[in-house]
């Protein structure tokens, strides 16, 4: 009987250790997956650059469309289209204090920022590469202020389209 209790206790410890290891492993995988989205390269196999985060305010001039019932959203700003994919990124909610710390840019500044980032990376790597024909060197967020004195941050994908 005593032997069985010891065995059970040992088994529980082993299970606990396994669970911890599993959760660490899962966490690492998640961090790796996230990390790969946080960097960009100028060319395949080249140096990795951290994508700067930029924030755009959801304003009256932003057209917001629900794409499907799954929470995906489309934001139209001028001639540009941004997509929030609910499956990939959950919206982040922050208090107004955090919101006020954010530095917002407009669509023209976003385009300038994208080009500046490309030039910065070229200058840093000392490798001349063709300018990007698709968007991918910025982490873009749309921020919406809620009535509850909170703000929702949507990480979005800038669609590679030209009007």
């Amino acid at each position, binding site marked *: 009987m005593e032997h069985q209790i010891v065995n059970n206790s040992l088994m529980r410890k082993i299970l606990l250790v396994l669970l911890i290891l599993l959760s660490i492993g899962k966490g690492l995988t998640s961090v790796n997956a996230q990390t790969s989205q946080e960097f*960009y*390269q*100028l*060319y*395949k*196999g*080249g140096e990795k650059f951290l994508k700067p985060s930029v924030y755009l305010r959801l304003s009256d001039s932003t*057209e917001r*469309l629900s*794409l499907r019932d799954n929470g995906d959203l*489309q934001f*139209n*700003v*001028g*001639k540009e*289209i941004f997509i929030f994919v609910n499956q990939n990124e959950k919206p982040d909610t922050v208090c107004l204090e955090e919101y006020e710390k954010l530095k917002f840019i*407009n*669509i*023209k500044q976003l*385009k*300038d920022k*994208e*080009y500046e980032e490309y030039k910065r990376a070229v200058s840093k790597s000392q*490798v001349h*590469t*063709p*300018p*990007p*024909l*698709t968007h*991918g060197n910025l982490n873009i967020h749309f921020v919406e202020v809620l009535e509850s004195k909170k703000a929702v941050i949507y990480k979005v994908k800038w*669609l*590679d*389209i*030209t*009007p």
Partner: protein
Amino acid sequence: MVLELCDRGLSYIKRLGSLKHPAANTAGYQTCRAHGTWCTQSSCPREVKWSAFADSVLIRFGEGEFRYDQDSEEESAGGGFIGYECEYEIINWYQVNPYGDDYYLDSDVYLECRFTEEAPVPEESSPNGGGYVLPSNGNGPNPPQTDEACYDPHPTIPGMVVPCVPYKDDDYKIINNLTGKAACVYDKLMKLKGGFKSAIQKFDGEFPVAHLRLDINNSLSNGIYGITGAPNNYTIPISMSNNQLEKISDLRGAIAFAHEVIHAEIYRKMLSAAERGDLVVSNMSKGEQLDFINNLRNDFPGLYDYYLKRYKPTWDHNMMAAHYRSTLSDIAEQFDNKRFGKQIYDDISWAGLRILGENVTSIAWDSLDSDHQDRILLNLKNHFHNGTSNCK
């Protein structure tokens, strides 16, 4: 003796390329295997159906087999290889996935052909007017060459040749999912003398976009009538908004359409220079980027000038404003059956090419004096929103 005709190199599952596999009756016996790893049953959210075209013959992938049976309804998902005997000349290879581009991600397909050489016999004749050239790799002699000018080495696949087949209408794949006013305007454009396609051909004297996908997207912003997406797997998507097109005249709709097709044409040229199915520069190796730049410089110096030499984020619209307005004007004039003088069509060809962004106007527009600009703005106003609209 085994002579490797082609090797790894074709990595795009959607369009495998324009390759001519020597027909079995050319010489000896040949076996080709299309290798591939794509999403497996477990990684595919739903079953992916694959099919392929070799020339006009529909080929479907079966489980581990590759068939020429046009009536076959075999479907498969997964990876592996598909072996087949090259009984036919195959020039154009495509694979079609009806579920969208997402399912091509992480796919990897290449062709491998092994040619067992037995007393090579030159082709007497072919639809292309000649035989093929197999560069010697030291393992065997080149087969006789009946028409040297007719075949070129494939740009990316060592040992493979590209036939000198003139582009045919069939090469120009237009996937047309248009409805409503967009479909009506498109149909009208296609009925123009010489057809819309030939109007497009005029851009540079050669056939334009290889694959064009025309869709409806009614979620575009106010004043945005159409968009052109970056190429993916050799397909350039154009989306038109019926919601927006319904607010403007048919003539304006035709110009909006032509505007997007010019974008597609620019992309097609760039794809040709990049020798790949997309234009994600960061996915190119340094060597591929260098080739891309050199090919642009050599083959499309105008494009090279705007995109690389004096790059601006608005380079494409600046180029269109400077160099494609006469094309747009001609299309508009033809579409409108010359109801007005040429000046009107020249002026309305400025649509979408004046304002390129917030406080940004095109270089060509800025170079006009204010009298010109005023006249153009008046003609745009008179003929766009107030013009005839028979398409519904």
